[in-house]
């Protein structure tokens, strides 16, 4: 009997994994600013995360210094340096901060990277024109958030 129970339990877990592909930006569950589960349902790739720190809609080093990325010029000073950030925050907290920093830090200047509504005069990227009205894409995809988080957890001192 134990054996059978175990089997069906395993089956349930498989089913959960299969359907929980991606958490929508409007459905992220925050607990004290932290997000427990992977947004994409997949583990992140730290090397892709390191790239996002320096490019596109991520561009984290526009505001943060990261010694491990010292080869990249022009690191900003608006936010705290991210060296040792994994000693200060758990993975779930880091995921929460990157997803929507304004929940952890009230009124933070840090952009909300996984958010699609509630903007004032939303534009069409950097054109200065109004957003066309189609589906709003978050600044980073669920998987890109996971990649960045996977990179941040490597920043230990």
């Amino acid at each position: 009997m134990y054996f059978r129970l175990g089997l069906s339990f395993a089956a349930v877990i498989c089913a959960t994994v299969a359907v929980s592909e991606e958490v929508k930006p409007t459905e992220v569950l925050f607990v004290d600013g932290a997000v427990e589960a992977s947004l994409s349902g997949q583990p992140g790739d730290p090397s892709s995360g390191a790239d996002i720190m320096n490019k596109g809609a991520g561009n984290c080093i526009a505001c943060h210094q990261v010694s491990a990325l010292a080869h990249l010029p022009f690191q900003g000073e608006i936010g705290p340096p991210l060296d040792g950030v994994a000693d200060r925050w758990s993975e779930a907290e880091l995921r929460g901060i990157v997803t929507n920093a304004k929940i952890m830090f009230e009124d933070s200047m840090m952009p909300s990277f996984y958010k699609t509504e509630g903007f004032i005069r939303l534009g069409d990227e950097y054109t200065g024109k109004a957003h066309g009205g189609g589906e709003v894409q978050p600044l980073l995809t669920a998987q890109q958030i996971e990649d960045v988080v996977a990179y941040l957890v490597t920043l230990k001192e």
Partner: protein
Amino acid sequence: MKIGAWTAVAMLGLTSVTLAQDGNTLSIDGETIVTEAVAPAHLENLDTIYSGWRFRTSETQALQIDDFDNPAMIFVDQALDLFEAVDGSEGKSCSSCHTDGPEEFAGLHASMPKVVDGKLVVMEDLINSHRQDVMGAEPWKWSGADMQAMVALIGLQSRGTPMDVTIDGDAAPFWEKGKELYYTRFGQLEMSCANCHEDNYGTMIRADHLSQGQINGFPTYRLKQAKLISRHNRFRGCIRDTRAETFAEGSDEFRALELYVASRSNGLHVETPAVRQ
């Protein structure tokens, strides 16, 4: 004081740009320009206001110290010609009416924008209304070369005069509107003017050394664009960079924002035409 943070970055070697604050005194052809002043009373969150000149590299600063080196002066010269040029159905030039030349406008720039007959008027409005109503000429485009050259020529007549725009009386509702815009977090990045220019001036955002976003030097000559940049063009650029839908140059929103931002410069000397990177 956040300006100090810059020193630390320079020492870390994160950037090769020289210390802008070494050049604290701006003196143009023997005339001292005030680039630092006690913040006007209506500014709740700042004690001291600084000209954008203070945040630039010494190379860029140097271009503003001597009018012969200032690339904006070519445009000012062109505006002197435009001042004399007859245009429009009435066969007039600016100098037909303003017989004492542009010197007649000494001090005007320092008090602009201002309310005239219930309307908030900026320098571009004054220029275009005279062109249309008095000269019978075509209006100039807001950020066009002719327009901004003329704004610079008139602004230059106030160089060395403290900015002093009126914010009460008729101006109050416009000023309030401008203030609201200044603190609104626009676009997908949800950033207000204050996020960058009040909370974080003196720090680096990527490769840019953030200033207080003062407009006492406008129109400014931007080395990157090799031309004079209007205030409204600068506002558009900053709002666009928040991934927002901007307002149009010459919109009522930007007139109000201009009044509010100008009032944040009250006390700094007019530097027009300034040079920026």
